[in-house]
């Protein structure tokens, strides 16, 4: 299951990369990046998954003493939380940029913003 999830995660990353490289529309590029981000998150979570164990939350079913045998690795989950939020921050920023760029030239085609070069 973890393999499948991880493979899907990698596939999503590649699909996202491909989209970001081939779509000239700014918004579509950003969409592609969110897909790649989701892919990364899946990969990270999948790495921490351990067959037959439960979420790293202690409650009536998982006591503190038995935790070591019962729960999955909590670290990747903590990292993913951070990664998701950071991803949103960057996406929001890129969207604001896209809006600003559109405001200037009334186009979303990235190939039109090439004044700086060389």
């Amino acid at each position: 299951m973890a393999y499948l999830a991880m493979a899907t995660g990698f596939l999503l990353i590649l699909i996202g990369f491909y989209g970001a490289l081939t779509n000239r529309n700014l918004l579509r590029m950003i969409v592609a990046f969110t897909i790649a981000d989701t892919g990364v998150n899946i990969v990270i979570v999948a790495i921490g998954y351990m067959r037959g164990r439960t979420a790293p939350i202690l409650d009536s079913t998982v006591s503190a003493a038995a935790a070591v045998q019962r729960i999955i690795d909590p670290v990747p989950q903590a990292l993913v939380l951070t990664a998701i939020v950071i991803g949103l921050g960057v996406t929001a920023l890129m969207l604001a940029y896209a809006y600003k760029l559109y405001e200037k030239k009334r186009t979303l085609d990235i190939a039109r913003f090439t004044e700086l070069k060389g």
Partner: protein
Amino acid sequence: MSHLLPWLTALLCFTMVVAALVAIRGKSTPIAILAAGLVSLVASVLFLILASPDVAMTEAAIGSGLTTFLFFFVLGRVRRGDHG
């Protein structure tokens, strides 16, 4: 129940890949945004299966919820003025 989980996982994964392809190659931008949101949403279900409820909640609320709205806000501003 548990023997169904791998099949469910496979289905979810397949859905995500298809949705991602739609988001990348589809003609319409709004559909692409929605497809990307769908990828996130399905991913959050996958996270639940992978025993990560915290991540699932976050992904659902932020990844598929807020992000999609942000996209639509910008798309709305941009599209209405798009005369070309």
